[in-house]
Structure formats: structure tokens, C-alpha cells
């Protein structure tokens, strides 16, 4: 069996998929391009997806170097009395500072003693300990690099198109996604929303998996899953089907492999219907 499909076979498989979709009310439709015989399968899905976005804040340093500056005031020299007044003021500020520091020290000692006292009653004091320790940790992190990743769960509208690629003689999945406000997703956001099962493979070479291209029939920017290796993962399925003389819907099988990568769910019921069709065919031929 030829692993490369003809366009006629593609049309035939698409029509079959449409029939099944109508039975299951799955929402697939056939769209024809204006002025030519070519067309594509189309489906629109509204679903929520988590778009991870990583934010890195730079290290915030509160050094005294940047703030400190020497100021030279070329004023006339203060007389002795004014100097003495300044000295008294500075001295009293220092005393006050020392006094306040001592008060704070006493306060911390007392709170430690209080916590030690409370530890003899573990049930009541656990929450307080964790809260105080958490606050202490936050104070320590003020001067360190913050790396936070925000998982933003958004409701997105996905539009999936299945076209036939003449170059590869295989189906190709094009898709685009919009937020509720009408903003189209960026390529990075699409990469971030890929199913975790495939994310490691995607991270190795994201551009060769999903990239942004012009839709061949509509001329609009779409995301596309590269079809170069379609033959590679379709081969075992088609070979086994050929060996067992069992018909297989190339487009449906291919879609069940590539669809989950970008959030397109192909329900099990398709395969159940196909199986019952095959069983009916076998019983009729007997």
C-alpha cells in the first residue's frame, strides 16, 4: 500500500470523516476555496487552555553606592556655637537611634521567649510559627532574583483546518487561536500550550514542529504542524492494516496522532464507529 496518498484519496477520507462527524455531531465541515476545486476540513472549538508565561525580574540591588553622594557645600564656615548646636542634634539623634535599636532588640528577645513558651503548646502555636517563618523568608528574598511563572488559564477559540499538501502528499493541520478579546496567539504562546506529553520533544526543536505560515488557500497567517514525518508515524498503522486487509481512514488516523499535540480532541467514538462499520462489512461479505 502506498504510504503517500493521492488527493482523490484525501477527498474520499475527508468525506468519510464528515459522515462520521455528522453522526457524532463533532462539528467538522467542508469548505471550498473560491474558484477552485480544492477545499479543506474546518472545525472551530472553544476551549480553555493554560498559557504559561515566564517573567524574570532583574536583581534589585539597594546599594548604598548609588544613593550615596558626597555633597560639597561651599558655604561659609559655621561659627562655633552653630557647630555645637549641630553636634548636640547629631548626638541626640544617635542616642535616640541606639535607644530604639535597644527597644527593638528587647522586643525580639521577648517574642522569641514567647514563641519558646508557646512551643510547649504545639497545637496552638504551629500556625504562628509558620507565619513568622514565612515572613522572615520573604524579607530575605528582597535582594534576590525573582523568577515566577504565571499559568494563565484563558478561554480561547481555536480554528482547525485540514488541507492536503501536494509537496508531501499527506494531510496537513493548520490552526489559529484567538482570545476572547480577539487577539491572536503568539507563536511562543502556542508552543507553551502544547500538551505536556509532547512538550519535551517540542522543546528540542520547536520551529520544526509548529511554525507560522500563510494558509495556502486563504492567504492568512496560520500555525502549521510540519508534515515531513507524517509518513514515518503512519507507516506502522498502514502496514498492519494492509497486512490484515482492513481499510483504514488515513485522515482520521493521522488526525488522532497530530490532533492532541495542539488540543484537538478526536473522540474515541470515531474509532468505535469505524470498528462497527468494519464488523458490518465483514458480516455482510460472509
Amino acid at each position, binding site marked *: 500500500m502506498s504510504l503517500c496518498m493521492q488527493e482523490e484519496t484525501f477527498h474520499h477520507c475527508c468525506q468519510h470523516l464528515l459522515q462520521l462527524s455528522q453522526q457524532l455531531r463533532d462539528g467538522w465541515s467542508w469548505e471550498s476555496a473560491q474558484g477552485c476545486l480544492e477545499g479543506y476540513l474546518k472545525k472551530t472549538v472553544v476551549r480553555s487552555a493554560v498559557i504559561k508565561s515566564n517573567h524574570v525580574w532583574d536583581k534589585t540591588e539597594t546599594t548604598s553606592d548609588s544613593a550615596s553622594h558626597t555633597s560639597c557645600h561651599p558655604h561659609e564656615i559655621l561659627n562655633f556655637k552653630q557647630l555645637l548646636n549641630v553636634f548636640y542634634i547629631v548626638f541626640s539623634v544617635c542616642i535616640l537611634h541606639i535607644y530604639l535599636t535597644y527597644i527593638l532588640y528587647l522586643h525580639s528577645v521577648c517574642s522569641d521567649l514567647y514563641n519558646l513558651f508557646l512551643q510547649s503548646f504545639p497545637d496552638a502555636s504551629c500556625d504562628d510559627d509558620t507565619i513568622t517563618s514565612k515572613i522572615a523568608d520573604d524579607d530575605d528574598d528582597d535582594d534576590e532574583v525573582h523568577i515566577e511563572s504565571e499559568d494563565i488559564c484563558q478561554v480561547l477559540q481555536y480554528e482547525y483546518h485540514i488541507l492536503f499538501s501536494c509537496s508531501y502528499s499527506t494531510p496537513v493541520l493548520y490552526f489559529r487561536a484567538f482570545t476572547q478579546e480577539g487577539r491572536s496567539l503568539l507563536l511562543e504562546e502556542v508552543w507553551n500550550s502544547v*500538551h*505536556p*506529553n*509532547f512538550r*519535551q*520533544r*517540542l522543546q*528540542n*526543536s520547536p*520551529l*520544526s*514542529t*509548529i511554525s507560522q505560515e500563510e494558509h495556502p488557500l486563504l492567504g492568512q497567517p496560520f500555525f502549521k*504542524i*510540519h508534515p*515531513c*514525518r507524517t509518513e*514515518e*508515524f503512519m*507507516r*506502522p*498503522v498502514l502496514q*498492519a*492494516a494492509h497486512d*490484515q486487509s*482492513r481499510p*483504514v481512514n488515513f485522515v*482520521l*488516523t493521522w488526525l*488522532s*496522532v497530530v*490532533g*492532541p*499535540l495542539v488540543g484537538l*480532541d*478526536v473522540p*474515541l467514538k*470515531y*474509532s*468505535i464507529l*469505524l*470498528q462497527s462499520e468494519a464488523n458490518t462489512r465483514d458480516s455482510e461479505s460472509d
Partner: protein
Amino acid sequence: MSDSAESPTEPQKEDSRPTTDDSAANDEKKKIDVLLKAVGDTPIMKTKKWAVDRGRTVQSLSQFISRFLKLDANEQLFIYVNQAFAPSPDQEVGALFDCFGSDGKLVLHYCKSQAWG
């Protein structure tokens, strides 16, 4: 439902005979027999038959097989049912067994390939 990829302990039972855990009274905890068949030039697993929790997803099973076969990071493992379609990663194996199981076991074909690009 145990989906963690770090816990391959559950299906790692060296079963050479069909085992259905009849001692588990609860249906949800019942394990199903999964027969793994290699396709193409994919390495063949020494142990082909595994008893897997019904609630385990295809994704966790795929990760387990990938680790078992020590696949590279840039290799993708594909799992097929009845050689006709690939189940969604979030699909539970219990549901697959109910629909496509035969002779008391679910046959899954696995294949490694450079999937994308």
C-alpha cells in the same frame, strides 16, 4: 488515579501469566491486562504483559515505556490501538479496554519515531 510519571512501581509486575487482580473488590481499582507490541525497529520490551490500573492515562503509560526503553529526549513514542488510531494522551486505559479489549486484554502497539518536523 496515579498519573505521576515518577511511580512506575504499579505496572512493574513481571507477569508471565495472565493476572487479573481479583482480590481487589472495588472495580475502579481493578487492573487490566495490557499487551505491548513493538512496531518497526522499536526495541521490544522484555516484559510485554502488564497489569495496569484502569485509571492510568495513555500519557503516563507512554512515559513509562519511554523510560523503560531509555528513549532519547528527541524521540517520540506513539501508541496505537487496533493499528487504526492513536488514543489521546489523556485517555484512560480502562475506557480503551472497555471499547477495544479482546480476550481479556488490551493490545497496544508502540512505535518510536522522530515525530515532528
